[in-house]
């Protein structure tokens, strides 16, 4: 296996009182060493559930999960979907690590920063307390916290939001993982601090050649750090490709709609924003149709009735660029390119 992560046809379903919620519905993606892959989508699109599945944080008793999530560790690899829990635990933190969205609630308020960091190391290196403490201070320094010796003896409430997110990154990197999952790592932070954290992640990636799976709803962040992008809508991947493909020649109507609805800095502010009408659908018992069809303005270009009755497949535009839409590609190609140009001008 060349890639660090290979997700193949992942489906995650939660039974609820109202019916089955198809949170993730057939997602496939890969992450190679040194690469940043972003999953973009709005709330409820299934991006966080996908990322949680990768480190096996779904509850096996209530979640129905199928497909495969292959994670590479040196010469062997493990399927997180079917592996037993103790095997997954051996991977968690050591091979795959995660940074959570909210640095305020992800640290334990009763324990000192240093000991929380050391714990992450001790799980995989039992008994090596001294090495763990040394590593904790080393990592704090690496993520740019001054006077790490002293700061390691402080509690989370003595750290600001940006500092706590740095601590979360340090903790995720305690065992030098090959793959880092960052779930909305900067959403809770201010822009000036966000810029610091994104720069830090980039620098760390350069040093260790780790792969990053970035979950975000912010298209600006994606444009700044991602190499490849997957766009999700209602649990399904609607478009996948290199970052330039997605931003300059989108082929899924939803991607196009998203790009057009963001106000751009530098644009004349007299123009109206091109909003996507309607609301995202409920994920409970989704009908067998294109989930975006009720909000889509291009359904008339597709073969009659297809959008309302058949789920489109993820079809390649080029080898690396795929999209899901019933509108014939030759019709989309020029139309979408012109629209995106118009929106940028």
């Amino acid at each position, binding site marked *: 296996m060349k890639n660090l992560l290979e997700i193949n046809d992942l489906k995650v379903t939660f039974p609820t009182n109202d019916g089955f919620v198809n949170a993730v519905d057939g997602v496939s993606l890969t992450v190679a060493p040194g690469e940043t892959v972003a999953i973009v989508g709005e709330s409820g699109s299934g991006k966080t559930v996908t990322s949680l599945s990768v480190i096996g944080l779904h509850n096996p008793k209530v979640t129905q999960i199928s497909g495969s999530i292959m994670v590479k560790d040196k010469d062997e690899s493990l399927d997180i979907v079917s592996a037993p829990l103790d095997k997954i635990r051996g991977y968690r933190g050591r091979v795959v690590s995660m940074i959570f969205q909210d640095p305020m609630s992800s640290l334990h308020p009763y324990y000192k920063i240093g000991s929380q960091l050391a714990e992450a190391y001790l799980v995989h290196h039992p008994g090596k307390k001294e090495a763990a403490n040394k590593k904790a201070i080393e990592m704090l320094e690496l993520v740019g916290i001054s006077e790490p010796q002293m700061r390691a003896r402080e509690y989370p409430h003595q750290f600001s939001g940006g500092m706590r997110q740095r601590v979360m990154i340090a903790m995720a990197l305690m065992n030098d993982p090959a793959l880092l999952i960052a779930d909305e790592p900067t959403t809770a932070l201010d822009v000036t601090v*966000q810029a610091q954290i994104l720069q830090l992640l980039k620098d760390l990636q350069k040093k260790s050649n780790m792969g990053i799976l970035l979950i975000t709803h912010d298209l600006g962040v994606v*444009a700044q750090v991602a190499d490849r992008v997957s766009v999700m809508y209602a649990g399904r991947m609607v478009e996948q490709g290199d970052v330039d493909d997605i931003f300059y020649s989108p082929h899924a109507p939803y991607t196009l709609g998203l790009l057009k609805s963001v106000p751009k*800095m530098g644009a004349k502010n007299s123009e109206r924003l091109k*909003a996507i009408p309607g609301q995202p659908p409920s994920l409970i018992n989704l009908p067998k149709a294109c989930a975006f069809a009720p909000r889509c303005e291009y359904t008339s270009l597709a073969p009659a009735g297809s959008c309302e009755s058949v789920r489109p497949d993820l079809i390649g535009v080029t080898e690396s660029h795929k999209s899901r839409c019933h509108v014939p590609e030759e019709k989309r190609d020029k139309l979408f390119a012109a629209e995106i140009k118009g929106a940028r001008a």
Partner: protein
Amino acid sequence: MSTPLLSVRNLQKYFPTSRNVGFKKQKLQVKAVDGISFDLMKGETFGLVGESGCGKTTAGRTILKLIEPTAGEIIFEGQDITKLRPGLMTPLRSQMQIIFQDPFSALNPRQTVGKIISAPFEIQKVTPAGGVRNEVSALMERVGLNPEHYNRYPHEFSGGQRQRIGIARAIALKPKLIVADEPVSALDVSIQAQVINLIDDLQKADGISIVFIAHNLSVVQHISDRVAVMYLGKIMELAKTEDLFTAPHHPYTTALLSAVPQPDPRGERNRERIILKGDLPSPINPPAGCVFNTRCWKVQEVCRSKTPELLTVGKSQVACHFPE
């Protein structure tokens, strides 16, 4: 120039707080808003931007006298309302309304939408022509809600729809001033654009003046006529939107603009970014001199001792000893 609808002069809001020093309590003050001044013209949208903790929300609430200012003056339509008692404020309240940030906590979960939107009529004891029920239905239609949902409860609506309910309530009495406090930050991108367009349309139709508070610079640029950038309770720069975004004069504005990632990968790759060091200092004990001096890359000796005043530089007003 026409007379402003609202004038804010040297507005201050300090919150008392305390810290234990040994066995004694030391009294301290959080300087949330520390002397801001601006005018709001009729029909104008005035953007107030800044990072969390810069005092923009406190400023918005103090302007409406939802919290009492510590010092300064608020003049609404020529009348000084700073010292007005709550009882005397009530008739003025129909002229000034607020849209809150979080559409999930701003609506009473036990009241129907109809009841929520008709509350302003009840409180002000106004009966619109055609009756309250008809007026509320018309309002719901205006903000893009189905009037048939009159008897539904807030939990039956999505975030974007709830924000529309909040907007309908705010425009019910045809106010002259609306303070919109982060009205779209809790919404998804595709819904955000819908709500921004709605606010834009309503304002153009009714000529309402809006103080638009947000941390998202792209949104503020889109909607505002003029923008003030706040940092630690003070205005750093105030200018026409176009001037502020094309030619920022204050180093903080420059840094803030350069920090916002744009949905343009090719542009992002070649962009020079000013990354500020450190975090926002505590508003309990703000730095002496210019409050930005701890993070500024152009800092000189004078910045640490003398507070810069908001002075005219080019077409903008800037509080900096060394404006660009």
